């Protein structure tokens, strides 16, 4: 199987991730969509790395994983703080800042 197919898969995953962010009201789910986008990028990196024959892409994928992990920590912390304060994790509800 040609690695280029993985790129297409990654693109699809990226789109699904983006759609999740746009469509899901649940903050956790939207956040997962972002993670999916990051991982789609990761997959792309790896796939291209394979196509090119270098290893930089694969190394970078590790970096991205680490960063994504850190992001999860921060993100969940914020979501938890919000849910504590509001007893809700709907993304639409906190909308006092507007206009």
């Amino acid at each position, binding site marked *: 199987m040609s690695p280029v197919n993985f*790129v297409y898969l*990654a693109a699809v995953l*990226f789109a699904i*991730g*983006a759609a999740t*962010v746009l469509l899901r009201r649940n*903050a956790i789910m*939207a*956040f997962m969509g*972002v993670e999916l*986008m*990051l991982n*789609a*990028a*990761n997959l*792309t*990196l790896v*796939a*291209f*790395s394979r*196509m*090119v024959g*270098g*290893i*930089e*892409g694969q190394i*970078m994928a590790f*970096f*991205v994983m680490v*960063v994504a992990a*850190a*992001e999860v920590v*921060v*993100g969940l*912390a*914020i*979501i938890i*703080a*919000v849910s*504590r*304060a*509001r007893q809700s994790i709907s*993304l639409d509800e*906190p*909308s*006092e*800042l*507007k*206009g």
Partner: protein
Amino acid sequence: MTYNVPEIAWAPLVPIIVVLVAGAVGVLLEAFMRNVALRRVVQLQLSVATLVLALFAIVWQWVAIGGDGVVVLRSMIYLDRQALAWQFLLVVFAIGGVLLFADRNREGEDAFTPLASVAPGSPDETVARAKGLAVTEAFPLAMLATGGMMLFASVNDLLFLFVALELFSLPLYILVALSRRRRLLSQEASLKYFLLGAFSSAIFLFGAALVYGAAETTGMRELLGLYVPERQTLLLLGLFMVVVGLLFKIGAVPFHFWVPDAYQGAPSPVTAFMAAATKAAAVAALARLSYLVLFRFAWELDWVIWTVAIASVIFGTVLAIVQTDVKRMLAYSSVAHAGFILVGFAGFSPLALSALPFYLLTYGVATLGAFAVITQVRELTPDGAAGAEATRLGQWAGLGKRHPVLAGLMSLFLLSFAGIPLTAGFVGKFVVFRAAVEQGAWPLVVVAVLASAAAAFFYLRLVVLMYFTDAPDDASPRVEVRPTGIGRGVAIAAGVIVLVLGVLPAGALNLADEAGVLLSPPVVTGG
């Protein structure tokens, strides 16, 4: 496969390392120092000392590396005076920001919640307040963010850029959530900022991955030499997505939606730091990317820059006009400023490389000063203590009569934002517009100046309120200026800088000219 352990020239990295190490030490301090009051003092002193040290280090490197710059880490990090100039700016903004973080009012309250983990308005919060807790994590977070930004302004590799992006973004997300008052808003702002930030950095990353696929490298200097012409579309798409990620951080339309909400919700010292520094870091990265890579695709990308620039100045301006909250108004003004900044990129004039740092310096200093003023204008609680910041525009009425110095400084910053001559903002606008006009982008400049004439309206509205309107007698809650030592110091210092840069900018422009060079890309060919 063999691995060459990369040779690293450590010396040029000293400023960044110092700051990041201080951040790490700060985190350790959080873990091990139990005495809140002492911890706060130590954190503050550590941060400021480190930043000042970094400042010296930058100057030392500025002298040391000369006009050409040095390779620090293979294709990842090259250091040149352009990078050092941006680092310098960032450290200056960080010093201002950190000082504002430390600012406390008469009741000993700073801008941060005593304990971020408790729910707003809960009994726990009262307890935490009573115990005199404080979120001293703000300092190490700020150091980490600063370090990340300095890196962001210096690296030459798109993926590394992503890492730096996250490094400075994540602390900011947290800082935004830490407001002492109006915590719900603060958390809401943080959540939005985080989600959109993560969203955009995913786009950025995906773009970087596509570039990797198209050029087999993510090093900016190598890109043009290595990319395969057949894959130009892929490369262009990837670069575009990277640019979008950067435009998000700059806060340009249509990627600006986080700006007003985050600016308004965040504690004002954080807003000040964030507004000044984030924009500078992002512009630094965009400048680097532009002059190493994008200029080759000027034909395609000019359209984007023009569109985004025009949209930013127009939407930023008209939206600022209808705002009723000072912080939100300044947020939209920062969107408009993003547009002015992008005007400098039109046509990729070499002049922009020196114009942009100068512009960001003027903008950042004025922003710090303006928010320093905002932190001092307070609603009074019924017992006469300083309460929340009075950010509704109407609450500023008559301030000029009661506090001429403060109001005068605020007016100065607003005039600088508006680009009135003899303030720093004018010189900044001048050099940026000059860069655009040099490349024949004068119609864009005309649009920008027309918008800035309209923008003057809302800056002046605040001046009108402060000077030409009498305060209503029965305002409830009462609004009073509660000058704080540090806040006033920062505002005055910013005011002096704004004036000096406005009247006698020759020295600073000289430095900016020297910074207007990028380490020229080595021509790398073949696979």
